[in-house]
């Protein structure tokens, strides 16, 4: 059984951000979360199917999530939902993520424009 390809150093904190974002609107269970990440990122981000649960447990321990068992269509599942501290955590993570991606975008854009400009002069 081979784990799915991922880039651990770039993925640090990303599962947390994705999970909190998905749970902002409504409660979900683990399988549903993995499928939603898969679908909504057009399969660009592949989180290991089983490793989503330790992140969920850790977020619940930190008070960012709450869980409860619910039976739907004869299947008992553990549903997770966002708490008030979890919403604050999401706002912080989102701001941080936006700041970093914007900085990277600026760097990459300048590099591409600078490179094209340098090529044009040459």
């Amino acid at each position, binding site marked *: *059984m*081979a*784990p*799915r390809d991922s880039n651990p150093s770039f993925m640090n904190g990303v599962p947390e951000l994705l999970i909190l974002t998905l749970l902002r609107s409504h409660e979900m*269970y*683990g*399988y549903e979360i*993995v499928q939603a990440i898969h679908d909504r990122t057009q399969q660009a981000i592949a989180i*290991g*199917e*089983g*490793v989503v*649960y*330790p*992140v969920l*447990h*850790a977020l619940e*321990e*930190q008070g960012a999530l709450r869980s409860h068992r619910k039976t739907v269509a004869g*299947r*008992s*599942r*553990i549903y997770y939902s966002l708490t008030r501290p979890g919403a604050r955590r999401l706002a912080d993570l989102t701001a941080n993520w936006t700041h970093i991606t914007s900085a990277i975008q600026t760097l990459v854009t300048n590099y591409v424009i600078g490179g094209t400009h340098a090529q044009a002069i040459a």
Partner: protein
Amino acid sequence: MPRQLHELRERLLRAGVAPRHVRRYLAELSDHLADLIAEEQRNGLARPAAESAALARLGDTEHLAQAMIRQPQLRAWSARAPWAAFGLVPIAVLAAAYAAALTILWTGWNWFLPGMDSPFGHQTTGLAYYYFTAGRALYYTAPLLVGWTISIIAARQRISIWWPAPGFALLACIAATVRVYAARSPRGGANVGIGLGLQNGYASLVPALIVFCVIAAPWIAWRMSTAPRVGS
């Protein structure tokens, strides 16, 4: 439970993950696996192929274990601070139980035997009987209950005998040498106290050894049940 999940449980418990998180993780993985198998079957795979594909998507045992082990807040207290869980806390709990037993003795003496020189050696009836019996039961059973608790915790969390053994030894020595004293002060006040002493010399170590074996029994039973069978 598939063999992989059984292996994962043992791996996580030995790594110090709290049993309640291990239990829930395995339950969620089992549900997830069932969903994946159903999905693969909907996509046209036969049951055995769907199971293999689902297990591959779930991740291998080491990958799943590392994801859990990397979360420090999911570790059991006994794994984070075993010296406290198997040394300080049992002794503190035993001290608290002895303090409660002495309080029962002191209050019972003042309430039910106010004129007596000692609370020992009197026939009591009714409420007084039950009150003193509760105190005695607490005094005699506290080392066993505390010892069994740490023994069961050590067994549940697959902890090596080297961590709980000093705690067992300390509890056994205390249980075998502890003595309660009660005397009236010259002004008539009731005084009770507790101390340790080898009243029968080194013969006191025999009860200590027996108590040690009794409190270590749950851990020994678990170890024997999981020991590899000869010839297997």
